[in-house]
């Protein structure tokens, strides 16, 4: 066990993630994991400090966990998952004696509220609307395409459908036709509808302390839902100044004193930046792992620093490297999906295997031979990791992977 520094903060982690726990256990802060009871036995067996809590139920006992953590001596709670973001808000409002934090966390949990808040603060967003039913979706699809002066029979511009409270790509659908609407199930409503923007989609990971960006990473999506790499190409990095100002706007709009945010943006060819959404938790798709590969620092430990009220600015400066300049190379990953309807085994394509940028994969062997039809983004069968010097080569390499069969 790494020597824990009693002068630093005591951290509560909300949610069960071995990656996060592993990283934080190796860090110098005391911590306790607050997670569902099913993880308790494993935690105890492995000496992981643990408090069981069922996050599915928001009820009159909700205050209890905040009190428990306060009595335990915790300084701050860090959410690991979308579902624990408002819990962290509630708990931190008690631990840090700041009621505003609960209200703030509610904004992060509701994609529609989030967008309105951004819009009210003068941040540019695409056309969006809430939907409660399929009829709402059809109406929005038609209206967007009318606005674009499409005639009957012209192929529609797609719209995006995002379940309100699902993280990342889960529940994200692209709708092109009325038929697509039929395949949406009832439990995906309410949802946010957005017009499609042709442009460059990217994500940002920002570690914030004292309303100041401590480290800002730009993750370049090669294809949404498939592949991402860091640091981005020089073209995208050339917008860094502008992106930094956009993040500062977000900090103001959402009143963020500290923590970690993970927003998504579109930049159109004329350089106009559109805000997509923002999450107040670590990103999926293993972006932190890519950042660690490129820069050598552990993102979870960085998050602990950003949340811990006892962290000093000197500590921050020593921990975070200089963006882009300090990167050892570009790290990317590709989420592999079976491309065939029936597959029998996982097989790394020869050209991937032989590529000097290819590092390793975490693809699972198929458990079933029939591939269920993909209706939404988000259920890749594992990740394939790449690393190399040249960002353009990385981008093209990741693109090529989309046309290869990892499952045959």
């Amino acid at each position, binding site marked *: 066990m790494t020597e824990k520094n009693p002068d630093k903060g005591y951290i509560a982690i909300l949610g069960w993630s071995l990656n996060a726990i592993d990283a934080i*256990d190796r860090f110098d802060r005391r911590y306790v994991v607050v997670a569902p009871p099913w993880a308790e036995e494993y935690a105890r067996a492995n000496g992981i400090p643990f408090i069981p809590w069922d996050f599915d139920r928001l009820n009159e006992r909700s205050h209890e966990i905040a009190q428990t953590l306060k009595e335990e001596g915790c300084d701050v709670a860090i959410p690991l998952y979308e579902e624990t973001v408002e819990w962290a808000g509630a708990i931190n409002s008690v631990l840090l004696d700041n009621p505003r934090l609960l209200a703030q966390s509610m904004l992060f949990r509701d994609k529609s509220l989030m967008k309105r808040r951004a819009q009210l603060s003068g941040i540019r967003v695409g056309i969006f609307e809430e939907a409660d039913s399929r009829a709402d979706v059809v109406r929005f699809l038609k209206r967007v395409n009318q606005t674009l002066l499409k005639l009957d029979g012209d192929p529609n511009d797609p719209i995006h459908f995002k379940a309100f409270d699902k993280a990342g790509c889960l529940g994200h659908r692209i709708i092109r036709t009325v038929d697509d609407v039929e395949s949406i199930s009832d439990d995906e409503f309410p949802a946010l509808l957005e017009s499609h923007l042709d442009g460059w989609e990217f994500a940002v990971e920002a570690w914030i302390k004292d309303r100041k960006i401590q480290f800002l990473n730009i993750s370049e999506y090669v294809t949404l839902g498939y592949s991402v790499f860091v640091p981005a190409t020089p073209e995208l990095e050339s917008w860094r100044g502008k992106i930094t100002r956009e993040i500062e706007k977000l900090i103001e709009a959402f009143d963020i004193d500290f923590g970690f945010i993970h927003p998504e943006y579109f930049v159109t060819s004329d350089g106009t930046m559109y805000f997509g959404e923002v999450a107040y938790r670590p990103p999926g798709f293993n972006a932190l792992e890519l950042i660690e590969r490129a820069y050598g620092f552990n993102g979870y430990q960085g998050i602990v620093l950003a949340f811990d009220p006892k962290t000093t600015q000197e500590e921050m400066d020593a921990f975070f490297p200089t963006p882009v300049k300090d990167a050892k190379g570009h790290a990317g990953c590709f989420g592999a999906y079976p491309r065939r309807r029936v597959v029998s085994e996982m097989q790394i394509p020869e050209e991937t295997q032989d590529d000097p940028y290819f590092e390793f994969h975490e693809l699972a062997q198929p458990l079933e031979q029939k591939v269920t039809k993909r209706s939404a983004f988000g259920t890749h069968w594992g990740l394939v990791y790449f690393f190399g010097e040249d960002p353009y080569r990385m981008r093209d390499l990741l693109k090529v992977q989309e046309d290869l069969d990892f499952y045959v």
Partner: protein
Amino acid sequence: MSEQDSARLDQLRATMEVALSRLEAARPFAKHRFQQAVLDVAYRMLTLPDGPDALYALAPRLDAAGLFAGSDWDAPATLQPRIVKHTLQSEHAATVMLEVASLLRMLAVARGDAEHAGIQADHARHFLTQVLALNLDRFFGQTDEAARSRDSVREASLDRLFRYLAAHIGFQDVLGLLVAEIWRILGQRPVQVGLVKDMIAQIAVSALERGNELGEARLGADRLVSALFAPTAGCREDPGLETYRARLGAMDDTALRHEAQGFARAMHDTGLVSDYHADFLRWAVEQGNGALVPDALGLGSTGLECWRQYGALVEGLIAEAVTPWTAQSVYGLAMLLERGILHHAPIAPALQRQMALKLCPAACAHLQAAFGGQVAPETFLLAGVLQVLGQPLGVGQGANPSCQSARALSMWALNAPDYLLHLVAQAATYDTLQMHFEGHPIDSADLPAGLVSGAPLDADAVSVILVPHLDRIYAEMGRRCADRGDDPHRWINPEFHGWWVGRECLVIVDVPSGGLADVHGFVRRFYRTYHPEYNGQEPVIHPQPAGIAVTDASARFVGWHAISILRVAEDQTGVMRVYFYNPNNDSGQDWGAGLVVSTQGRGERHGEASLPFPDFAARLYLFHYDPVLRTQSRKEPPPQAVAGVVDAIRSSWAAGRPDVDEEVLRAAAAPASP
């Protein structure tokens, strides 16, 4: 190692550093999160020529980093050497790599390069020796069905790994087992002995270098080595062919006869022919000293009789076929004479035609690709003909998916040698074969390639010439009955092989559904047809094609395989056994659930495989019988015997296959029968 491979290995080492340092840093509870990446990189290293060495260097670090955390391999003292083989057959590369990493860790402990709590160097060495002994097939490079259906890069990598382990563990115990294994394979008298000869050459080298380590294995190894390199007094110290010839000129008749007898003894002892032996025969014929031939071939009464009648032909065959590059043809010739088939009227003229045959360019090219250019393609082919006719049960399919063709070759060599010579002459001269299917001619030249792409490179000369054609014809026959809704072998086997194949065919698997059809009826019929106690003591007259559901050592289904049933008889202990021919290169296979196919010591003739009757029935899925020959004295086998076989079928290869309703079957079968 090529420059490219070495650059790749360097790069993988660097990537391994990334993956391994993540694993090292991880807390014990998170180890599994980073194990797969390490295994992935390690596996890629393993596939490179110097991979085993690079991984050996990493083995202690991999262990300490927690590669085995959370798995059985974390407690090496409890590992079972017998399980290694199965793990290496896993379809998951990560599992295979985990086993490999564990073996290399054992090696590091055995050699004192690493320590691990709970295992001593002695224990590790003993463990590895057992593993090597249990995986001797890795040294022979012989592939069975199970291996053939797996990844060839992986198989080659694992073979290399085992050679690495053997080279580093010290040779004594392994070599003893190796020698026993060679004797076991030679007991089957394969036509193709190139690999065995290479192995013996390696043993000879290591015996020379580290003879004192050999211990008791020394004697068996010596017999093998001397059979190849020094079978007689005249070549005791392996003097080279030129010196040996010079010595022959100075020998008197007694000495020459001793030479001849020495050669024959070594040849019949091992089935291997020394280069000196081949050259001795050539010399004798060139010198007009044909009287030495019967002694040099070690002929018995039948062979001697043939030689007396066809001495000129035999000398002609020696002059045309026997060279140091085709030395094994001497054994083929001896066995051909011993079989007495020269007394079958068409054989002598057919062999004369074969000697005069001019090969077409395609046939020459195939033979040269397979055997090289030291002697003429015609010589290779004639030598191959002698071997196949002399050792019909020694024909092997090599690493090719052509068990059907190999089985047919063997069956013809055994049963219709003149027909086989007819096919060879046709294909070698015109690069095509014509056969008939249900009255319609099929020309192989008109057909697309079948399962085998091109001519095989690792089979005998007759196979090299015939298999590409047979394979295509076989596939075409399959196409012509593809829509009949039943196993196509029902119609193909009699048409393809010959008149003697039973006209009726029973298949236990319902082809459309994959389910089992009337299992009990199938087993009962098999007993009534083949078991002497239930078929009125009727022997198997001609070899009959049959289909086997091959299983691996865990009795799991691997695939369908073609064999032929040769005879059914009691062995010396009174156990009723089915003796059969398996076109596989090594018939001694473990089919799981206690079924280990025997190849010697249970009444087998050279090249035969055998199983007790019920065990054989438990892997059988297709056989032929002749409805015409229904004798009065047939009787039903006892129900408990049938039930035992049915249980063995259901619990092994047919596990999970449903039973198909018989009425449905009858309804489906009625309109489909041609």
